[in-house]
């Protein structure tokens, strides 16, 4: 409203530049919208294609609307098996890396031990090194250990826990380092034993960091292709399945999985936001 009246007033003495001025006023908004479109178009395509009724496997084109893909997601051969493997590995890797990474983060922040500073540095390395290097060295390790024939679910899980740990440590450590020491001292001063202090004060305050680390771990694990592919043996995860079928024409059910994954992430983000807003609204 304000912009409109301002523009109208100025038109009187400087005609013709109204459009230009409107663009100048809204440039940031326009750019922002363009970036959003750029980000969301691929996702929109995935959502759209999940309702596609293709006439040919070889042409990736929207031919007609159907709910068939949604009603028969496991029709695509091997997809549900791969998906189930990915989810299982994702959950186990999340559990393993979150527990180990949280313990490492506590050790790094709370305890002084020989090698702490080098540990602080080394924990970054897995994040910084190329996946292909980590994947191939892990493969070399498994083969050298005589497990070359047993590549599969467990070797993938070991690999995923390994590369997720760094991210967990970094996330939890940041949260923990920002925690005021006085809070734990205050809890102890108020008759809380060390165990009670941990569960009543430290853990609830660090928990958002741990939760964030767990979500990150799951998505890293679910996502991973390079390291997984090198250490998978005959096991197929969802990304490997997609890669495999991409050469023969992607079944539309892959888009269903993609859409569901996207909706789940949206739900988590929106749910978290709503929850925190409701909590602060209730307090005021």
């Amino acid at each position: 409203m304000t912009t409109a009246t301002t523009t109208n007033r100025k038109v009187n003495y400087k005609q013709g530049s109204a459009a230009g001025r409107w663009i100048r006023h809204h440039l940031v908004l326009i750019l922002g919208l363009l970036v959003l479109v750029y980000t969301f178009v691929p996702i929109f395509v995935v959502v759209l294609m999940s309702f596609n009724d293709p006439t040919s496997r070889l042409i990736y084109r929207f031919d007609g609307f159907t709910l068939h893909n949604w009603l028969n997601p496991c029709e695509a051969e091997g997809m549900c098996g791969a998906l189930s493997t990915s989810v299982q590995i994702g959950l186990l890797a999340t559990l393993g890396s979150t527990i180990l990474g949280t313990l490492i983060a506590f050790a790094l922040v709370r305890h002084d031990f020989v090698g702490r500073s080098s540990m602080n540095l080394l924990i970054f390395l897995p994040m910084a090194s190329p996946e292909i290097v980590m994947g191939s060295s892990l493969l070399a390790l498994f083969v050298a250990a005589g497990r070359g024939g047993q590549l599969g679910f467990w070797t993938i899980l070991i690999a995923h826990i390994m590369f997720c740990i760094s991210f967990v440590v970094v996330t939890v450590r940041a949260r923990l380092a920002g925690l005021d020491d006085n809070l734990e001292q205050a809890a102890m001063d108020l008759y809380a034993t060390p165990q009670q202090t941990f569960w009543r004060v430290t853990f609830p305050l660090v928990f958002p960091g741990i939760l964030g680390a767990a979500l990150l771990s799951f998505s890293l694990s679910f996502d991973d292709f390079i390291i997984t592919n090198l250490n998978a043996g005959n096991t197929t995860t969802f990304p490997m399945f997609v890669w495999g079928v991409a050469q023969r024409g992607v079944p539309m059910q892959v888009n269903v999985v993609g859409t569901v994954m996207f909706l789940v992430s949206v739900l988590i983000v929106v749910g978290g936001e709503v929850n925190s807003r409701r909590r602060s609204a209730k307090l005021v």
Partner: protein
Amino acid sequence: MSQVAEQQPTAADAESYDGLRLRNVTKSFAAFTAVDDLDLDVPSGSFIALLGPSGCGKTTTLRMVAGLETPTAGSITLAGQDITYAKPYQRPVNTVFQSYALFPHLDIYENVAFGLRRRKSNEVDASVRDMLELVELTSQARKKPAQLSGGQQQRVALARALINKPEVLLLDEPLGALDLKLRRSMQLEIKRIQTEVGLTFVHVTHDQEEAMTMADTVAVMNAGVIEQMGAPADLYENPQSTFVANFLGQSNLIEGTIRSRAADVVTVDMHGVQVSVPTERCHADSDKGWVGIRPEKVLIGAPGEELDAPGNTIPGGVVTDVSFVGVSTQYLVRMPWGQELAIFQQNTGRHRLFAPGEEVELSWRPEYAFLLDFSQDASAGSQKVDAE
């Protein structure tokens, strides 16, 4: 240095003493000794302030009483029980932290209830309500700490500690983060609550005004030891060391040679002027000393003017600086021996103002002077930390 140190307590003494008692407590961090062989008695129900500049060991002393630091040597007893090595959660002591340290994830009610819940009290709800009423925060019970103002958070911290009815409540510079006006009203508020609940309070501060306003006993600490301990007025009027004389208020310290020591007065030659100091205010053993006099005790007049003081008149002063601050006028007067003395004169309207360069005479009543040991540094404690 402290008076209590001179009485050697017996073991039986310690057991019958119902207050807080520190004996020979030392705390060293690597090469640095924060607290050095400290003795302190805090009678039950009293309000004591540990006053000193930052780094003097006052907070370390408090943390040792709370159990958050372990003494390197010495013992701490509370109501006859040795708590030197007891865990923080095992001692009947609670702390109000400088940063308040309220639990950000719990609301005000749960913050205050925290201690009672840990001890499985049956009357959590009634006690919390009473306590919130005492600190006037009943309406804020369901808010989170971050939604309260600094002064309200401070009161929550106080309530959270007080509700446990500790034997000793420790206050670690609890008003440092508040603005001046709020600080003044909280000082009176805390004093009121202490009188009301009758608990023992140990207050740590670097603000001398705060210490004197709130506490009935002030212990001035410096470099890990208690320099002097006593009622605020005693400390101010009769300091026993140059540190106390300078840290608590302001003092003029003038070099002097002791001429004679009588039963009631000590006569000192101060750059050719004979002055007397009451014997009980004489804390110098050698034949030299610092004659101390507070600026507001010094009278200033024109040469030959009759001053309301039966002591000797010290002639030959020249006014070098005048600051008019409303209620009083502050002069700096250069004496014949080169030293500049500070004088505060109340603006009662009976005196005329002197201008810089004017010749003046100074005088004071002998009973206000004190004599300090010459071996002490005359400027000790004068670099005090400003109260923000």
